[in-house]
């Protein structure tokens, strides 16, 4: 699979580490979140047949984390964004 690193361009999958589907944002103060909501943050991940937002890190390259949208059926990846954006 070719993965478009926003900094280095298209690179082979072996250069990356998979970061999984993008979790919901980290709660500003996790201590105020109830158990159910915290479990949702920890363990619930989307598993769609189709478009999935997920994170990769270019470990063998620029070491930047970034987010892409990958179609889980075709592995087509739409242009990435910087992970912090």
């Amino acid at each position, binding site marked *: 699979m070719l993965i478009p690193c926003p900094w280095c361009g298209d690179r082979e999958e072996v250069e990356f*580490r998979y970061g999984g589907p993008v979790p919901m944002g980290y709660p500003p103060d996790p201590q105020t979140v109830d158990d159910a909501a915290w479990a949702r943050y920890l363990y619930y991940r989307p598993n769609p047949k189709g478009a999935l937002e997920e994170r990769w890190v270019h470990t063998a390259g620029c070491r930047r*984390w970034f987010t892409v949208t990958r179609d889980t059926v075709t592995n087509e990846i739409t242009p990435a964004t910087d992970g912090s954006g």
Partner: protein
Amino acid sequence: MSRLPQGGRIDRSRPLHFTFNGDAYGGYPGDTLASALLANDVRVVAQSVTNRRPRGIFTAGIEEPNALVQIGPEPMLRATQVELVDGLGALGLKGKGRVSAEPDTARFDKIYAHCEVLVVGGGRAGLTAALEAGRSGGRVILVDEQAELGGRLLTAGWNDWLAGAIGELSSMHEVRLLTRATAFGVYDQNLVLVAERRPDGQRLWQVRASKIVLATGAHERPLIFANNDRPGILLAGAVRTYINRYGVAPGKRAVIFTNNDSTKVLETDLRRAGISLEGVIDVREGQAVLDTVTESAGSLKSVITAPLTGNQPRRGIECDLLCVSGGFNPALHLFSQAQGKLRYDDGLACFVPDQPIRGVEVVGAADGDLGGRGQGAITPYWVIPGDGGDWSTHFVDLERDATVADVQQALGTGMRSVEHIKRFTTIGTGSDQGKTAGINESATIATQLGQPVGAVGVTTYRPPYVPVPFGLMASRNRHDLFEPIRVTPMHSWHVAHGAVFENAGQWKRPRFYPTADEDIAAAVARECRAARTNVAAVDVSTLGKIDIQGPDSLEFLNRIYTNAFDTLKEGCCRYGLMCKADGMVFDDGVVMHLGADHWFATTTTGGAAAVLDWMEEWLQTEWPDLRVHLTSVTDQWASIAVVGPRSRAVVRSLFPSLPVGPDSFPFLAIRESEIGDMRVRLHRITFSGELAYELWTPSWYGLSLWEAVMAAGEPLGITPYGLGAMEILRAEKGYIIVGQDTDGTVTPQDLGMGWMVSKRKAFIGQRSHRRVDTARTDRKHLVGLLPLDGDALLPEGTQLVLQPDGASLKSVGHVTSSYRSPTLGRTFALALLQGGRGRLGTTVHAPLDGRAIAATVTEPIFYDKENDRRDS
């Protein structure tokens, strides 16, 4: 001899010699083993895999199901694919070859290539596409599985056009033509794997193409009738190929059995080759071959024909060659691998591409343009009934010996899906992947069920399209090149001093250093005693090392680690523990405060990369506002732990100007010093409980520093030690190894390390420690175990129970670390035990293969509980 006096693309000026099953034969360059065998009238070349039926050459190409041969160590080659060379020795197989027990001596290599257009198939459609792409100036790669470009043109005799096309392509600088190169797999984003056969081995091409043009042609398919597997029965198109391309007459008296127009031109070819045409049996005229008869060796002697309907008498026709055509299947294996969907075309009686897919173009016969094969009008009549309802010789898959009777049995059990029936009957699972059988399987099912073929569908095509050796996949990534080997700067010293190594991830680490006649136990015991009673040194350069700089470093570390660093003064270090967000221990190490906004962290040897990625993920995705920079410096530093009650003397002699007394260089302090121009950073930390100093230096000084330590310690008898002793020393003190005593389900509290968890600041995983499950008091706790029999060693991983026998063998935990301690003079272990801290002093049992080891539960510390020794 059946070699024609003239014609064919063989070089008759250079006779070749070969053997088949030990008998000597002759042929010519340009022959395949199959064409040469036919030229020598070898009709029976193999036996079928299950029923041991005699089988002959059936096709002229990659789809061959019968003529499997072994050549040297190479099992399961197709005679139709083997180029004849002088001295070749082949054996016909009974359905399967023999894998050699010897290492493969063939050379395998890999090459990467990128192009605008990759054309698969060098027939007319492929050459045309390559010419068009080449004229545009783009990079073009054309691959073809055969030794010669041309595909069916080599049979059809388009020699001038072919020569012109190849000539023009050869003159284009950006066009690369690869023959003997089979594209066998299509993967994401147009990655195509191509196996190229070379004189001394094979080469794996990994081609990234902006566009793939599939000009993969079509495979002719047989008709299904009783005893349709006899030697002498060939696909009609193959007969044309043997006559025209190889100058061979595969028989003397021929019958054609067809359902389409493609055999018309064969009649001319047969006549020119001097083969008498005894009859044309055309399904479209209501005629069929019902059965076949053999001579004693099993080859075809005659066919029995009759009208498909009515009661007209049967007719026998003497012949030694039956040319069969049931139409054509576009070769859409690669299209299907690229996730293209297929659709059944009633007019063509075959599956064709349904919708185009991005980046892939299908052309020629593969796209259903069967004009070149002359199919014309076709009347599919898939299965011709035999006598008395016997379907046991109506072969659907010749290589797998699977028949219509097998399909009926599968249907009888209630199976309807073509995928299920494939697996039950094994149709399509042979090394030919059912290239002549797959669509006939679907059609047989459709016929039996009275459904349209398109409704039954086809089985999924998966890579590889042809068998490829595992050696080709591995190519040079074998032995020392299987994966990177990492060694520390001191590795050469360890080797020279007889270290026995063990793998720690990619690292080679000394396990112990045996003297002349020591076994592992004796060597490890000696190394442990040296560290406890004298002085010893261990190479700890493999620790992960992360340099942390920036004004928000302290805040960052406080968020990452469970413990706080606000009070850690410059020039000091502290043990640190980190959890994942789920509250489970993830890694540990030492955090050093080196200067203003300058910190440093070590990680476990195995966790270095994961910890850095983890830290970067938080910095980059959740906390981009933190001004922190991380740099991996694992390979930039060499580290040596000098350990034992006399370690201070060694350090003092190495650094005479450095005050090393317990007050001037206290526990957890950092100092800098030098030996000549070798700068050294020293840390007072211990992973053994003994007085110890870690000496760090830039890695290019690592060997020099190690040698200096050994020289300075020599008068005291300093002992190098390895992982074996290191693990015992740390376990005696109850120091955990993340990944051995933890497994991703263990909290700091489970480990009895609640004191490491700050209550005054927020950190990753903190919220999880309040979850109902995490806060349970009966979770598994880290405890010590002392077997009642001090000589009994609990195997690591052993489950623990409360009663040694009887009904309740419910596991209440497991052993995580277990050793013989030379210091304690007995065995001991660490374990994770349910409610373990409430079971101190009780006995648990490890049931083992008919016996049980009983052990007393203790605190997880066995030596120097007062921590007196580290400051001794």
